[in-house]
């Protein structure tokens, strides 16, 4: 295995364990991992923004112009306008000139709203309404079972559940009597939906953890299984250095704890 692969896999193992060390308490190893991920994410995002955003949409379009003429001799000089507006947004950080940033921000919000609202209404509201109001599949009412989404029974549940949930959010009338009963059923439907979201969230988090443990297992196997084609003695060196680091930190924590206890006792 080449040194580069060894280095990155060991670093990944170290950062995984450093992040999990937060389960004990906040510690320098966790801080290193946390700051590293924040810094690398920010740097990566800047590069992506530069190469995928600014370069193709601005600099390449103004490439046939000259910078000392402010690209006004370019075939598309109007691209300078959004560039200037974007630069003016940075005045937000100035105490005296932050008002300037309101102009490009207003333009940006106006355009984004005009583009987004009709599409969001059409796709998130109207299409969902149409799907909820679709006909019940009476020919296949029971389907393959209780959780068959194509069955007519599921369509009835979806329709009744949607109406009941909407009843809950109607606060102009007190939730009493029949109205209150339907609203309570609506809450149950909402809670079942939230429970499904919670379950999928738990599954997602567990699967991330499983993936990390699988990677640590692969790294450990490479470290100690000499028949593995990825085996190299450097893994074992890195492993024992990691263990040494953790043991050293544990010893330091223990010494501090004992020092605090003896100071408290002597008072």
């Amino acid at each position, binding site marked *: 295995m080449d040194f580069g692969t060894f280095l990155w896999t060991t670093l990944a193992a170290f950062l995984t364990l450093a992040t999990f060390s937060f389960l004990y308490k906040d510690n320098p190893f966790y801080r290193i991992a946390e700051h590293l991920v924040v810094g690398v994410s920010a740097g990566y995002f800047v590069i992506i923004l530069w190469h995928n955003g600014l370069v193709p949409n601005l600099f390449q379009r103004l490439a046939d112009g000259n910078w000392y003429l402010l690209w006004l001799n370019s075939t598309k000089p109007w691209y300078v306008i959004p560039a200037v507006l974007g630069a003016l947004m940075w005045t937000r950080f100035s105490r005296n000139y932050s008002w300037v940033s309101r102009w490009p921000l207003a333009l940006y919000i106006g355009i984004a709203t005009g*583009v987004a609202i009709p599409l969001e209404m*059409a796709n998130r509201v109207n299409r969902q309404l*149409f799907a909820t109001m679709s006909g019940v599949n009476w020919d296949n009412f029971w389907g393959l079972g209780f959780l068959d989404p194509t069955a007519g029974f599921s369509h009835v549940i979806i329709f009744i559940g949607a109406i009941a949930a909407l009843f809950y959010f109607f606060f102009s009338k007190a939730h009493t009597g029949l109205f209150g009963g339907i609203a309570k059923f609506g809450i149950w439907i909402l809670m079942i939906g939230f429970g499904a979201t919670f379950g999928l969230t*738990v599954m*997602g988090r567990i699967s991330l953890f499983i993936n990390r443990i699988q990677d640590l297992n692969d790294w450990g196997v490479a470290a100690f299984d000499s028949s593995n084609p990825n085996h190299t003695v450097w893994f074992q060196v890195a492993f024992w250095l990691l263990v040494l680091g953790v043991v050293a930190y544990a010893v330091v924590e223990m010494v501090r704890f004992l020092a605090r206890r003896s100071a408290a006792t002597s008072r």
Partner: protein
Amino acid sequence: PMMQGVQNYDQIACVIDVSAGNITDAWIAYGQGRFGFPLAVGLTGVMGADYYPYLNSGQIFGIMAGMHGAAQYEKLAENPGRGRDGMRIQLYAHIIIILFIIMGNVGYFMSLRDRKKVGR
């Protein structure tokens, strides 16, 4: 480049978005909603519950949510891998979490009963 010569969505048979962020919303609203091409999505488990309504409404034709979706895809493609391995472990993790939830609820109702007894 892969997309050289592709000018618009008429030249694309379908779009499969495999992502972990908000870009899926953009594909549904600004892509499929405007141009009507077939769209399938591969998501993280956390996002799955939010996007099943789009499957039921026909805005997307397929969804692959989290490790569960990956395992289903591996079964479909008859190519077992980490998804199916991970689902075995997921089963035990979920059983433990369900047990903890049951224990928590039992403890809660027992403490309610004790409080009522003390109140009397």
